[in-house]
Protein backbone atom coordinates (compact mmCIF):
# COMPACT_ATOMS: atom_id res chain seq x y z
CA UNK A 1 0.00 0.00 0.00
CA UNK A 2 1.57 3.27 -1.09
CA UNK A 3 0.94 6.35 0.95
CA UNK A 4 0.01 9.43 -0.97
CA UNK A 5 0.93 12.68 0.68
CA UNK A 6 0.74 16.14 -0.76
CA UNK A 7 2.36 19.31 0.39
CA UNK A 8 0.43 21.77 2.49
CA UNK A 9 2.48 24.82 3.39
CA UNK A 10 5.45 22.63 4.17
CA UNK A 11 3.34 20.19 6.19
CA UNK A 12 1.65 17.04 4.98
CA UNK A 13 -2.11 16.85 5.33
CA UNK A 14 -3.06 14.37 8.02
CA UNK A 15 -6.68 14.65 6.93
CA UNK A 16 -8.01 15.79 3.60
CA UNK A 17 -11.65 15.81 2.47
CA UNK A 18 -12.89 16.76 -0.96
CA UNK A 19 -16.60 17.29 -1.45
CA UNK A 20 -17.31 14.80 1.32
CA UNK A 21 -21.02 14.12 1.52
CA UNK A 22 -23.26 11.75 3.45
CA UNK A 23 -26.94 11.46 2.74
CA UNK A 24 -29.16 9.20 4.82
CA UNK A 25 -32.46 7.57 3.93
CA UNK A 26 -35.19 10.10 3.28
CA UNK A 27 -32.68 12.45 1.57
CA UNK A 28 -31.37 13.71 4.89
CA UNK A 29 -28.09 15.42 4.06
CA UNK A 30 -26.03 15.11 7.24
CA UNK A 31 -22.78 16.32 5.63
CA UNK A 32 -22.83 18.40 2.45
CA UNK A 33 -19.80 18.59 0.21
CA UNK A 34 -17.20 19.35 2.87
CA UNK A 35 -13.67 20.33 1.82
CA UNK A 36 -11.08 20.15 4.54
CA UNK A 37 -7.32 19.98 5.10
CA UNK A 38 -5.78 19.29 8.48
CA UNK A 39 -1.99 19.41 8.72
CA UNK A 40 0.16 16.91 10.56
CA UNK A 41 0.57 17.73 14.24
CA UNK A 42 -2.37 20.13 14.31
CA UNK A 43 -5.27 20.25 16.75
CA UNK A 44 -8.19 20.93 14.45
CA UNK A 45 -11.62 21.71 15.86
CA UNK A 46 -14.99 21.04 14.35
CA UNK A 47 -17.43 23.34 16.11
CA UNK A 48 -21.16 23.10 15.75
CA UNK A 49 -24.44 22.48 17.55
CA UNK A 50 -26.09 19.08 18.02
CA UNK A 51 -27.15 17.63 14.71
CA UNK A 52 -24.79 19.81 12.65
CA UNK A 53 -23.08 16.77 11.11
CA UNK A 54 -19.98 16.58 13.32
CA UNK A 55 -20.33 12.93 14.32
CA UNK A 56 -21.25 11.86 10.78
CA UNK A 57 -18.07 13.56 9.54
CA UNK A 58 -15.98 11.73 12.16
CA UNK A 59 -17.62 8.39 11.36
CA UNK A 60 -16.79 8.82 7.67
CA UNK A 61 -13.18 9.76 8.38
CA UNK A 62 -12.85 6.76 10.74
CA UNK A 63 -14.18 4.34 8.08
CA UNK A 64 -17.28 3.55 10.15
CA UNK A 65 -19.57 5.09 7.56
CA UNK A 66 -18.93 5.28 3.82
CA UNK A 67 -19.48 8.65 2.15
CA UNK A 68 -22.27 8.86 -0.40
CA UNK A 69 -20.18 11.31 -2.43
CA UNK A 70 -16.76 12.93 -2.45
CA UNK A 71 -13.58 11.47 -1.03
CA UNK A 72 -11.32 11.73 1.99
CA UNK A 73 -7.91 10.56 3.08
CA UNK A 74 -6.51 10.14 6.57
CA UNK A 75 -2.76 9.75 7.17
CA UNK A 76 -2.45 9.61 3.40
CA UNK A 77 -4.84 6.69 2.90
CA UNK A 78 -8.22 6.78 1.23
CA UNK A 79 -11.01 6.12 3.74
CA UNK A 80 -12.91 3.91 1.31
CA UNK A 81 -10.31 1.96 -0.62
CA UNK A 82 -7.58 1.79 2.09
CA UNK A 83 -9.81 1.30 5.12
CA UNK A 84 -7.45 -1.15 6.85
CA UNK A 85 -4.51 1.25 6.56
CA UNK A 86 -6.64 4.12 7.86
CA UNK A 87 -7.74 2.04 10.86
CA UNK A 88 -4.12 1.16 11.64
CA UNK A 89 -3.21 4.86 11.63
CA UNK A 90 -5.98 6.31 13.76
CA UNK A 91 -7.24 6.30 17.32
CA UNK A 92 -10.89 7.03 17.97
CA UNK A 93 -12.88 8.15 20.99
CA UNK A 94 -16.46 8.51 19.83
CA UNK A 95 -19.17 10.59 21.41
CA UNK A 96 -20.75 7.52 23.00
CA UNK A 97 -18.09 6.22 25.33
CA UNK A 98 -17.28 2.78 23.96
CA UNK A 99 -16.39 0.72 27.00
CA UNK A 100 -17.16 -2.85 27.90
CA UNK A 101 -18.74 -2.83 31.37
CA UNK A 102 -17.74 -6.46 31.99
CA UNK A 103 -14.02 -5.84 31.87
CA UNK A 104 -11.72 -4.00 34.23
CA UNK A 105 -9.87 -0.95 32.96
CA UNK A 106 -6.66 -2.96 32.64
CA UNK A 107 -8.35 -5.87 30.84
CA UNK A 108 -9.99 -3.51 28.40
CA UNK A 109 -6.70 -1.81 27.54
CA UNK A 110 -4.86 -5.14 27.23
CA UNK A 111 -7.56 -6.41 24.86
CA UNK A 112 -7.32 -3.19 22.87
CA UNK A 113 -3.52 -3.60 22.70
CA UNK A 114 -4.02 -7.17 21.46
CA UNK A 115 -6.34 -6.02 18.68
CA UNK A 116 -3.52 -3.76 17.48
CA UNK A 117 -1.00 -6.59 17.63
CA UNK A 118 0.61 -5.57 20.93
CA UNK A 119 0.39 -8.80 22.89
CA UNK A 120 2.00 -10.47 25.93
CA UNK A 121 4.37 -8.48 28.12
CA UNK A 122 4.43 -5.57 25.64
CA UNK A 123 0.63 -5.29 25.87
CA UNK A 124 0.66 -5.43 29.65
CA UNK A 125 3.36 -2.78 29.80
CA UNK A 126 1.55 -0.48 27.36
CA UNK A 127 -1.69 -0.84 29.31
CA UNK A 128 0.10 0.13 32.53
CA UNK A 129 1.69 3.15 30.82
CA UNK A 130 -1.67 4.36 29.55
CA UNK A 131 -3.40 3.81 32.90
CA UNK A 132 -0.67 5.95 34.44
CA UNK A 133 -1.07 8.58 31.69
CA UNK A 134 -4.78 9.02 32.34
CA UNK A 135 -4.49 8.67 36.12
CA UNK A 136 -6.41 5.43 36.44
CA UNK A 137 -3.73 3.15 37.90
CA UNK A 138 -5.55 2.92 41.24
CA UNK A 139 -8.82 1.95 39.53
CA UNK A 140 -7.20 -0.38 36.98
CA UNK A 141 -8.56 -3.61 38.45
CA UNK A 142 -12.14 -2.35 38.87
CA UNK A 143 -14.77 -3.14 36.26
CA UNK A 144 -15.46 -0.14 34.05
CA UNK A 145 -19.14 -0.11 34.98
CA UNK A 146 -18.10 1.25 38.40
CA UNK A 147 -16.22 4.21 36.86
CA UNK A 148 -17.51 7.79 36.96
CA UNK A 149 -18.25 9.62 33.68
CA UNK A 150 -14.86 11.36 33.75
CA UNK A 151 -12.99 8.12 34.44
CA UNK A 152 -14.82 6.37 31.59
CA UNK A 153 -13.94 9.19 29.21
CA UNK A 154 -10.27 9.04 30.25
CA UNK A 155 -10.16 5.28 29.81
CA UNK A 156 -11.81 5.61 26.41
CA UNK A 157 -9.17 8.16 25.48
CA UNK A 158 -6.42 5.79 26.68
CA UNK A 159 -7.90 2.95 24.63
CA UNK A 160 -7.64 5.15 21.54
CA UNK A 161 -3.92 5.60 22.16
CA UNK A 162 -2.69 2.02 22.57
CA UNK A 163 -0.90 1.96 19.19
CA UNK A 164 0.34 5.57 19.28
CA UNK A 165 -1.85 6.63 16.36
CA UNK A 166 -0.80 9.28 13.87
CA UNK A 167 -4.25 10.84 13.95
CA UNK A 168 -6.60 10.92 16.92
CA UNK A 169 -10.32 11.57 16.48
CA UNK A 170 -12.14 12.88 19.53
CA UNK A 171 -15.87 13.27 19.05
CA UNK A 172 -17.16 15.62 21.74
CA UNK A 173 -14.65 14.34 24.28
CA UNK A 174 -15.94 16.44 27.17
CA UNK A 175 -19.69 16.42 26.64
CA UNK A 176 -21.45 15.62 29.90
CA UNK A 177 -18.33 15.98 32.03
CA UNK A 178 -17.99 18.15 35.09
CA UNK A 179 -15.66 21.16 34.78
CA UNK A 180 -12.76 19.52 36.63
CA UNK A 181 -12.87 16.41 34.41
CA UNK A 182 -13.08 18.63 31.35
CA UNK A 183 -9.89 20.43 32.33
CA UNK A 184 -8.15 17.07 32.87
CA UNK A 185 -9.15 15.92 29.38
CA UNK A 186 -7.89 19.20 27.90
CA UNK A 187 -4.51 18.71 29.57
CA UNK A 188 -4.34 15.17 28.22
CA UNK A 189 -5.27 16.29 24.71
CA UNK A 190 -2.49 18.88 24.80
CA UNK A 191 0.09 16.39 26.04
CA UNK A 192 -0.94 13.84 23.36
CA UNK A 193 -0.63 16.52 20.70
CA UNK A 194 2.79 17.49 22.06
CA UNK A 195 4.05 14.04 21.04
CA UNK A 196 3.20 14.84 17.41
CA UNK A 197 -0.26 13.28 17.14
CA UNK A 198 -2.68 15.15 14.91
CA UNK A 199 -5.98 15.68 16.68
CA UNK A 200 -9.37 16.14 15.05
CA UNK A 201 -11.76 17.25 17.74
CA UNK A 202 -15.46 17.95 17.51
CA UNK A 203 -17.13 20.06 20.12
CA UNK A 204 -20.17 22.14 20.82
CA UNK A 205 -18.32 24.08 23.50
CA UNK A 206 -16.95 27.41 22.35
CA UNK A 207 -14.39 27.67 25.11
CA UNK A 208 -13.09 24.20 24.31
CA UNK A 209 -12.55 25.12 20.67
CA UNK A 210 -10.95 28.41 21.72
CA UNK A 211 -8.66 26.79 24.30
CA UNK A 212 -7.50 23.74 22.40
CA UNK A 213 -7.68 24.26 18.67
CA UNK A 214 -5.06 25.83 16.45
CA UNK A 215 -7.58 25.99 13.64
CA UNK A 216 -11.24 25.23 13.51
CA UNK A 217 -14.18 24.95 11.18
CA UNK A 218 -17.70 25.95 12.09
CA UNK A 219 -20.20 23.44 10.77
CA UNK A 220 -23.92 24.07 10.53
CA UNK A 221 -26.54 21.97 8.77
CA UNK A 222 -23.80 19.77 7.35
CA UNK A 223 -21.81 22.59 5.76
CA UNK A 224 -18.65 24.40 6.79
CA UNK A 225 -19.68 28.03 7.17
CA UNK A 226 -16.41 29.47 8.50
CA UNK A 227 -12.85 28.25 8.92
CA UNK A 228 -9.63 29.63 10.38
CA UNK A 229 -7.74 30.14 13.60
CA UNK A 230 -9.91 31.17 16.57
CA UNK A 231 -8.09 34.52 16.57
CA UNK A 232 -8.83 35.09 12.89
CA UNK A 233 -12.48 34.14 13.22
CA UNK A 234 -12.90 36.53 16.12
CA UNK A 235 -10.64 39.22 14.65
CA UNK A 236 -12.64 39.35 11.42
CA UNK A 237 -15.57 40.65 13.43
CA UNK A 238 -13.98 43.91 14.60
CA UNK A 239 -12.66 45.15 17.88
CA UNK A 240 -15.64 45.02 20.25
CA UNK A 241 -19.15 43.67 20.29
CA UNK A 242 -21.97 45.43 22.10
CA UNK A 243 -24.91 43.12 22.78
CA UNK A 244 -28.26 44.80 23.31
CA UNK A 245 -30.84 42.49 24.88
CA UNK A 246 -34.20 43.46 23.32
CA UNK A 247 -36.47 42.05 26.03
CA UNK A 248 -39.32 42.14 23.54
CA UNK A 249 -38.43 45.49 21.91
CA UNK A 250 -38.81 45.63 18.12
CA UNK A 251 -35.44 44.84 16.46
CA UNK A 252 -36.01 47.18 13.50
CA UNK A 253 -37.07 50.08 15.70
CA UNK A 254 -34.12 49.49 18.01
CA UNK A 255 -31.68 49.38 15.11
CA UNK A 256 -33.23 52.51 13.61
CA UNK A 257 -32.94 54.29 16.96
CA UNK A 258 -29.26 53.48 17.21
CA UNK A 259 -28.80 54.64 13.61
CA UNK A 260 -25.37 55.41 12.14
CA UNK A 261 -23.34 55.14 15.31
CA UNK A 262 -19.73 56.33 14.91
CA UNK A 263 -17.41 53.30 14.58
CA UNK A 264 -20.27 50.87 13.96
CA UNK A 265 -19.08 48.17 11.56
CA UNK A 266 -22.18 45.99 11.37
CA UNK A 267 -25.28 44.89 13.20
CA UNK A 268 -26.20 41.19 13.43
CA UNK A 269 -29.63 40.25 14.79
CA UNK A 270 -29.64 37.41 17.31
CA UNK A 271 -32.44 35.82 19.29
CA UNK A 272 -34.11 38.72 21.18
CA UNK A 273 -30.88 40.68 20.92
CA UNK A 274 -28.77 42.79 18.57
CA UNK A 275 -25.01 42.34 18.27
CA UNK A 276 -23.30 45.61 17.32
CA UNK A 277 -19.71 45.28 16.11
CA UNK A 278 -17.94 48.55 16.89
CA UNK A 279 -14.42 49.99 16.98
CA UNK A 280 -14.64 51.03 20.61
CA UNK A 281 -17.29 49.36 22.71
CA UNK A 282 -16.80 51.38 25.87
CA UNK A 283 -17.05 54.66 23.99
CA UNK A 284 -20.18 53.53 22.15
CA UNK A 285 -22.18 52.56 25.23
CA UNK A 286 -23.16 56.09 26.26
CA UNK A 287 -24.22 56.97 22.71
CA UNK A 288 -26.29 53.82 22.36
CA UNK A 289 -28.05 54.37 25.70
CA UNK A 290 -28.67 58.02 24.84
CA UNK A 291 -30.11 57.29 21.39
CA UNK A 292 -32.38 54.53 22.68
CA UNK A 293 -33.59 56.77 25.50
CA UNK A 294 -34.27 59.63 23.08
CA UNK A 295 -36.25 57.35 20.78
CA UNK A 296 -38.20 55.91 23.70
CA UNK A 297 -37.06 52.37 22.98
CA UNK A 298 -36.99 50.28 26.13
CA UNK A 299 -34.48 47.42 25.99
CA UNK A 300 -32.86 45.01 28.47
CA UNK A 301 -29.21 44.74 29.45
CA UNK A 302 -26.42 46.10 27.28
CA UNK A 303 -23.05 44.37 27.49
CA UNK A 304 -19.72 45.12 25.85
CA UNK A 305 -17.16 42.45 25.21
CA UNK A 306 -14.52 41.37 22.76
CA UNK A 307 -15.89 39.18 19.96
CA UNK A 308 -16.03 35.50 20.97
CA UNK A 309 -16.32 32.38 18.89
CA UNK A 310 -20.02 32.57 19.60
CA UNK A 311 -20.04 35.89 17.79
CA UNK A 312 -18.17 34.23 14.94
CA UNK A 313 -20.82 31.51 14.98
CA UNK A 314 -23.57 34.11 14.99
CA UNK A 315 -21.91 35.94 12.10
CA UNK A 316 -21.64 32.70 10.10
CA UNK A 317 -25.02 31.16 10.86
CA UNK A 318 -27.28 33.98 12.01
CA UNK A 319 -27.81 32.45 15.43
CA UNK A 320 -25.99 31.75 18.64
CA UNK A 321 -24.53 28.31 19.28
CA UNK A 322 -26.76 26.21 21.52
CA UNK A 323 -25.35 25.89 24.99
CA UNK A 324 -23.27 29.04 24.68
CA UNK A 325 -23.20 30.96 27.93
CA UNK A 326 -24.56 27.96 29.79
CA UNK A 327 -22.11 28.57 32.53
CA UNK A 328 -19.47 26.09 31.49
CA UNK A 329 -16.94 28.73 30.62
CA UNK A 330 -17.54 30.57 33.85
CA UNK A 331 -17.23 27.39 35.89
CA UNK A 332 -13.92 26.63 34.28
CA UNK A 333 -12.55 30.10 34.80
CA UNK A 334 -11.73 30.33 31.13
CA UNK A 335 -13.85 32.91 29.43
CA UNK A 336 -14.24 35.35 32.28
CA UNK A 337 -10.53 36.10 32.27
CA UNK A 338 -10.80 37.36 28.73
CA UNK A 339 -14.03 39.17 29.25
CA UNK A 340 -13.98 42.78 30.29
CA UNK A 341 -17.72 43.00 30.17
CA UNK A 342 -19.66 45.76 31.76
CA UNK A 343 -23.37 45.42 31.97
CA UNK A 344 -25.43 48.56 31.94
CA UNK A 345 -29.16 48.91 32.11
CA UNK A 346 -30.62 52.05 30.51
Amino acid at each position, binding site marked *: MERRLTENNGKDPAIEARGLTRTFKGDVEAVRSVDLRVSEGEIFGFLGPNGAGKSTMVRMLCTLLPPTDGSASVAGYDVVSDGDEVRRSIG*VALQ*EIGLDPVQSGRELLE*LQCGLYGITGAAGRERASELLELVGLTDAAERRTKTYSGGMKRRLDLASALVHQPEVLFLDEPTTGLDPASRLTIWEEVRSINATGTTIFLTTQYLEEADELCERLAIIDHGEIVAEGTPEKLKGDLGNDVVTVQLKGADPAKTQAAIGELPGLERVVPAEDALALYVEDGAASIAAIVGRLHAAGVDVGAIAVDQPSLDDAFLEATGRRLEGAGDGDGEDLGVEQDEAAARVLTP
Partner: protein
Amino acid sequence: MTEVLLLGRRAVREVIRYPEATIPTLFIPLFFLAVNIGQVSKTFPSTTPFLNGQGYVAFQLPVSLMFAVATATTGLALVTEIDSGYFDKLLVAPIRRTSLIVGRLGADLVRGVAASTVVLLAGIAFGAHVESGVLGAIVCVLLASFFGVAYAGFGILVALTTRNVQATNTSFLLFFPLLFLTPNFVPFDRLSPVMETLARLNPVSYVIVGIRSLIIDGWVVDKILVCIGVILVMGVVLIGLSLRAIKTYDS
Protein backbone atom coordinates in the same frame (compact mmCIF):
# COMPACT_ATOMS: atom_id res chain seq x y z
CA MET B 1 -6.34 -15.80 14.76
CA THR B 2 -4.99 -13.93 17.78
CA GLU B 3 -7.86 -11.47 17.57
CA VAL B 4 -10.41 -14.32 17.54
CA LEU B 5 -8.84 -15.81 20.68
CA LEU B 6 -8.72 -12.43 22.41
CA LEU B 7 -12.34 -11.65 21.55
CA GLY B 8 -13.41 -15.19 22.46
CA ARG B 9 -11.70 -14.94 25.84
CA ARG B 10 -13.47 -11.68 26.48
CA ALA B 11 -16.84 -13.24 25.56
CA VAL B 12 -16.18 -16.18 27.91
CA ARG B 13 -15.31 -13.69 30.62
CA GLU B 14 -18.67 -12.04 29.95
CA VAL B 15 -20.49 -15.37 30.43
CA ILE B 16 -18.66 -16.05 33.70
CA ARG B 17 -19.14 -12.54 35.08
CA TYR B 18 -22.83 -12.37 34.19
CA PRO B 19 -24.18 -15.60 35.68
CA GLU B 20 -27.59 -13.94 35.87
CA ALA B 21 -27.71 -14.13 32.06
CA THR B 22 -26.83 -17.85 31.98
CA ILE B 23 -28.63 -19.32 34.99
CA PRO B 24 -32.17 -18.67 33.65
CA THR B 25 -31.21 -20.44 30.43
CA LEU B 26 -30.44 -23.51 32.56
CA PHE B 27 -33.56 -23.21 34.68
CA ILE B 28 -35.95 -23.57 31.71
CA PRO B 29 -34.59 -26.91 30.38
CA LEU B 30 -34.36 -28.39 33.85
CA PHE B 31 -37.90 -27.20 34.64
CA PHE B 32 -39.30 -28.71 31.42
CA LEU B 33 -37.44 -31.94 32.08
CA ALA B 34 -38.90 -32.27 35.57
CA VAL B 35 -42.43 -31.24 34.57
CA ASN B 36 -42.65 -33.42 31.48
CA ILE B 37 -41.35 -36.47 33.28
CA GLY B 38 -43.73 -35.85 36.16
CA GLN B 39 -46.71 -35.51 33.84
CA VAL B 40 -46.28 -38.41 31.44
CA SER B 41 -43.89 -40.95 32.97
CA LYS B 42 -46.84 -43.14 34.01
CA THR B 43 -48.31 -42.90 30.51
CA PHE B 44 -45.00 -44.04 29.04
CA PRO B 45 -43.50 -46.61 31.44
CA SER B 46 -40.17 -48.20 30.67
CA THR B 47 -41.98 -51.06 28.95
CA THR B 48 -43.04 -48.63 26.18
CA PRO B 49 -41.39 -49.96 22.99
CA PHE B 50 -39.75 -46.70 21.88
CA LEU B 51 -38.09 -46.26 25.30
CA ASN B 52 -35.99 -49.39 24.93
CA GLY B 53 -36.36 -50.24 28.61
CA GLN B 54 -35.48 -46.74 29.89
CA GLY B 55 -37.62 -44.22 31.74
CA TYR B 56 -39.32 -41.35 29.87
CA VAL B 57 -36.55 -38.99 31.09
CA ALA B 58 -34.20 -40.55 28.51
CA PHE B 59 -36.69 -39.63 25.75
CA GLN B 60 -37.11 -36.05 26.99
CA LEU B 61 -33.45 -35.36 27.69
CA PRO B 62 -32.52 -34.28 24.11
CA VAL B 63 -35.35 -31.71 24.12
CA SER B 64 -33.98 -30.21 27.32
CA LEU B 65 -30.50 -30.16 25.80
CA MET B 66 -31.92 -28.14 22.88
CA PHE B 67 -33.48 -25.69 25.31
CA ALA B 68 -30.19 -25.34 27.17
CA VAL B 69 -28.14 -24.38 24.13
CA ALA B 70 -30.57 -22.50 21.89
CA THR B 71 -30.63 -19.10 23.57
CA ALA B 72 -30.65 -15.47 22.57
CA THR B 73 -27.67 -14.81 24.87
CA THR B 74 -25.10 -14.09 22.15
CA GLY B 75 -27.44 -11.94 20.08
CA LEU B 76 -28.38 -9.99 23.19
CA ALA B 77 -24.76 -9.50 24.23
CA LEU B 78 -24.00 -8.22 20.73
CA VAL B 79 -26.93 -5.82 20.52
CA THR B 80 -26.05 -4.48 23.98
CA GLU B 81 -22.52 -3.90 22.72
CA ILE B 82 -23.90 -2.04 19.70
CA ASP B 83 -26.10 0.05 22.00
CA SER B 84 -23.22 0.95 24.32
CA GLY B 85 -20.92 2.07 21.50
CA TYR B 86 -18.26 -0.55 22.29
CA PHE B 87 -19.06 -2.30 19.01
CA ASP B 88 -17.98 0.82 17.09
CA LYS B 89 -14.74 0.81 19.05
CA LEU B 90 -14.11 -2.75 17.91
CA LEU B 91 -15.08 -1.92 14.32
CA VAL B 92 -12.41 0.78 14.05
CA ALA B 93 -9.70 -1.63 15.21
CA PRO B 94 -7.59 -3.04 12.35
CA ILE B 95 -9.10 -6.53 12.58
CA ARG B 96 -11.31 -8.63 10.33
CA ARG B 97 -14.92 -7.83 11.13
CA THR B 98 -15.79 -11.50 11.02
CA SER B 99 -13.49 -12.04 14.04
CA LEU B 100 -16.04 -10.19 16.15
CA ILE B 101 -18.59 -12.91 15.33
CA VAL B 102 -16.27 -15.89 15.37
CA GLY B 103 -14.91 -14.88 18.79
CA ARG B 104 -18.43 -14.74 20.19
CA LEU B 105 -19.32 -18.11 18.65
CA GLY B 106 -16.25 -19.61 20.32
CA ALA B 107 -17.58 -18.43 23.66
CA ASP B 108 -20.97 -19.88 22.70
CA LEU B 109 -19.34 -23.26 22.25
CA VAL B 110 -17.81 -23.05 25.72
CA ARG B 111 -21.13 -21.97 27.23
CA GLY B 112 -22.99 -24.69 25.30
CA VAL B 113 -20.64 -27.42 26.53
CA ALA B 114 -21.06 -26.25 30.13
CA ALA B 115 -24.86 -25.91 29.91
CA SER B 116 -25.47 -29.20 28.11
CA THR B 117 -23.17 -31.04 30.51
CA VAL B 118 -25.20 -29.74 33.44
CA VAL B 119 -28.49 -30.79 31.78
CA LEU B 120 -27.13 -34.20 30.77
CA LEU B 121 -25.90 -34.84 34.31
CA ALA B 122 -29.31 -33.75 35.63
CA GLY B 123 -30.96 -36.22 33.24
CA ILE B 124 -28.67 -38.98 34.46
CA ALA B 125 -29.52 -38.02 38.06
CA PHE B 126 -33.23 -38.36 37.10
CA GLY B 127 -32.50 -41.93 35.97
CA ALA B 128 -31.51 -41.65 32.31
CA HIS B 129 -28.76 -43.91 31.04
CA VAL B 130 -26.66 -43.07 27.98
CA GLU B 131 -26.73 -46.31 26.01
CA SER B 132 -23.73 -45.34 23.87
CA GLY B 133 -21.55 -44.92 26.99
CA VAL B 134 -19.23 -42.13 28.09
CA LEU B 135 -18.05 -41.41 24.57
CA GLY B 136 -21.69 -41.23 23.45
CA ALA B 137 -22.43 -38.81 26.28
CA ILE B 138 -19.54 -36.60 25.13
CA VAL B 139 -20.88 -36.73 21.56
CA CYS B 140 -24.35 -35.76 22.88
CA VAL B 141 -22.86 -32.72 24.59
CA LEU B 142 -20.86 -31.76 21.49
CA LEU B 143 -23.81 -32.17 19.12
CA ALA B 144 -26.01 -30.05 21.36
CA SER B 145 -23.26 -27.43 21.77
CA PHE B 146 -22.59 -27.13 18.04
CA PHE B 147 -26.33 -26.90 17.44
CA GLY B 148 -26.30 -23.99 19.94
CA VAL B 149 -23.44 -22.35 18.01
CA ALA B 150 -25.33 -22.72 14.71
CA TYR B 151 -28.52 -21.36 16.29
CA ALA B 152 -26.56 -18.39 17.75
CA GLY B 153 -26.03 -17.30 14.14
CA PHE B 154 -29.73 -16.48 14.03
CA GLY B 155 -29.58 -14.27 17.14
CA ILE B 156 -26.50 -12.49 15.77
CA LEU B 157 -28.26 -11.93 12.46
CA VAL B 158 -31.28 -10.40 14.22
CA ALA B 159 -29.00 -8.26 16.42
CA LEU B 160 -27.01 -6.91 13.46
CA THR B 161 -29.99 -6.24 11.24
CA THR B 162 -32.40 -4.78 13.81
CA ARG B 163 -29.88 -3.32 16.32
CA ASN B 164 -32.77 -3.52 18.73
CA VAL B 165 -32.64 -5.23 22.13
CA GLN B 166 -36.36 -6.07 22.21
CA ALA B 167 -36.36 -7.58 18.73
CA THR B 168 -33.30 -9.67 19.53
CA ASN B 169 -34.79 -10.83 22.80
CA THR B 170 -38.12 -11.86 21.30
CA SER B 171 -36.40 -13.63 18.39
CA PHE B 172 -35.82 -16.45 20.88
CA LEU B 173 -39.58 -17.12 20.87
CA LEU B 174 -39.27 -18.32 17.27
CA PHE B 175 -37.47 -21.35 18.64
CA PHE B 176 -40.59 -22.65 20.42
CA PRO B 177 -42.44 -23.73 17.27
CA LEU B 178 -39.22 -25.23 15.96
CA LEU B 179 -38.84 -27.23 19.15
CA PHE B 180 -42.44 -28.33 19.50
CA LEU B 181 -43.08 -29.22 15.86
CA THR B 182 -40.79 -32.18 16.43
CA PRO B 183 -41.12 -35.71 17.84
CA ASN B 184 -40.45 -34.16 21.23
CA PHE B 185 -43.07 -36.14 23.21
CA VAL B 186 -43.43 -39.25 21.04
CA PRO B 187 -41.66 -40.67 17.97
CA PHE B 188 -42.61 -39.61 14.42
CA ASP B 189 -44.93 -42.59 13.88
CA ARG B 190 -47.01 -41.79 16.96
CA LEU B 191 -47.76 -38.21 15.77
CA SER B 192 -50.94 -37.28 13.88
CA PRO B 193 -50.40 -37.24 10.09
CA VAL B 194 -50.32 -33.44 9.89
CA MET B 195 -47.94 -33.13 12.84
CA GLU B 196 -45.76 -35.89 11.48
CA THR B 197 -45.46 -34.10 8.12
CA LEU B 198 -44.56 -30.83 9.84
CA ALA B 199 -42.12 -32.56 12.18
CA ARG B 200 -40.42 -34.35 9.29
CA LEU B 201 -39.99 -30.98 7.53
CA ASN B 202 -38.45 -29.41 10.62
CA PRO B 203 -34.64 -29.80 10.71
CA VAL B 204 -34.56 -29.56 14.51
CA SER B 205 -36.41 -32.93 14.62
CA TYR B 206 -33.34 -34.68 13.23
CA VAL B 207 -31.04 -33.10 15.80
CA ILE B 208 -33.32 -34.38 18.57
CA VAL B 209 -33.60 -37.81 16.96
CA GLY B 210 -29.83 -38.08 16.55
CA ILE B 211 -29.02 -37.16 20.15
CA ARG B 212 -31.88 -39.33 21.39
CA SER B 213 -30.54 -42.32 19.51
CA LEU B 214 -27.23 -42.01 21.39
CA ILE B 215 -29.10 -42.01 24.72
CA ILE B 216 -31.70 -44.71 24.03
CA ASP B 217 -30.39 -46.93 21.24
CA GLY B 218 -26.59 -46.68 21.28
CA TRP B 219 -24.59 -45.92 18.12
CA VAL B 220 -27.05 -45.58 15.22
CA VAL B 221 -24.72 -44.17 12.59
CA ASP B 222 -27.27 -42.95 10.04
CA LYS B 223 -29.23 -40.95 12.63
CA ILE B 224 -26.02 -39.39 13.96
CA LEU B 225 -24.81 -38.49 10.47
CA VAL B 226 -28.14 -36.86 9.60
CA CYS B 227 -27.98 -34.94 12.89
CA ILE B 228 -24.45 -33.72 12.08
CA GLY B 229 -25.53 -32.83 8.55
CA VAL B 230 -28.46 -30.74 9.78
CA ILE B 231 -26.26 -28.89 12.28
CA LEU B 232 -23.68 -28.22 9.56
CA VAL B 233 -26.25 -26.89 7.10
CA MET B 234 -27.89 -24.73 9.79
CA GLY B 235 -24.48 -23.44 10.81
CA VAL B 236 -23.37 -22.65 7.26
CA VAL B 237 -26.63 -20.82 6.49
CA LEU B 238 -27.17 -18.91 9.75
CA ILE B 239 -23.54 -18.13 10.56
CA GLY B 240 -22.89 -17.38 6.89
CA LEU B 241 -25.71 -14.84 6.88
CA SER B 242 -24.49 -13.25 10.12
CA LEU B 243 -20.93 -12.99 8.77
CA ARG B 244 -22.29 -11.33 5.65
CA ALA B 245 -24.33 -8.97 7.83
CA ILE B 246 -21.26 -7.81 9.74
CA LYS B 247 -19.22 -7.40 6.57
CA THR B 248 -21.87 -5.06 5.15
CA TYR B 249 -22.69 -3.37 8.48
CA ASP B 250 -23.13 0.39 7.84
CA SER B 251 -21.86 0.20 4.29
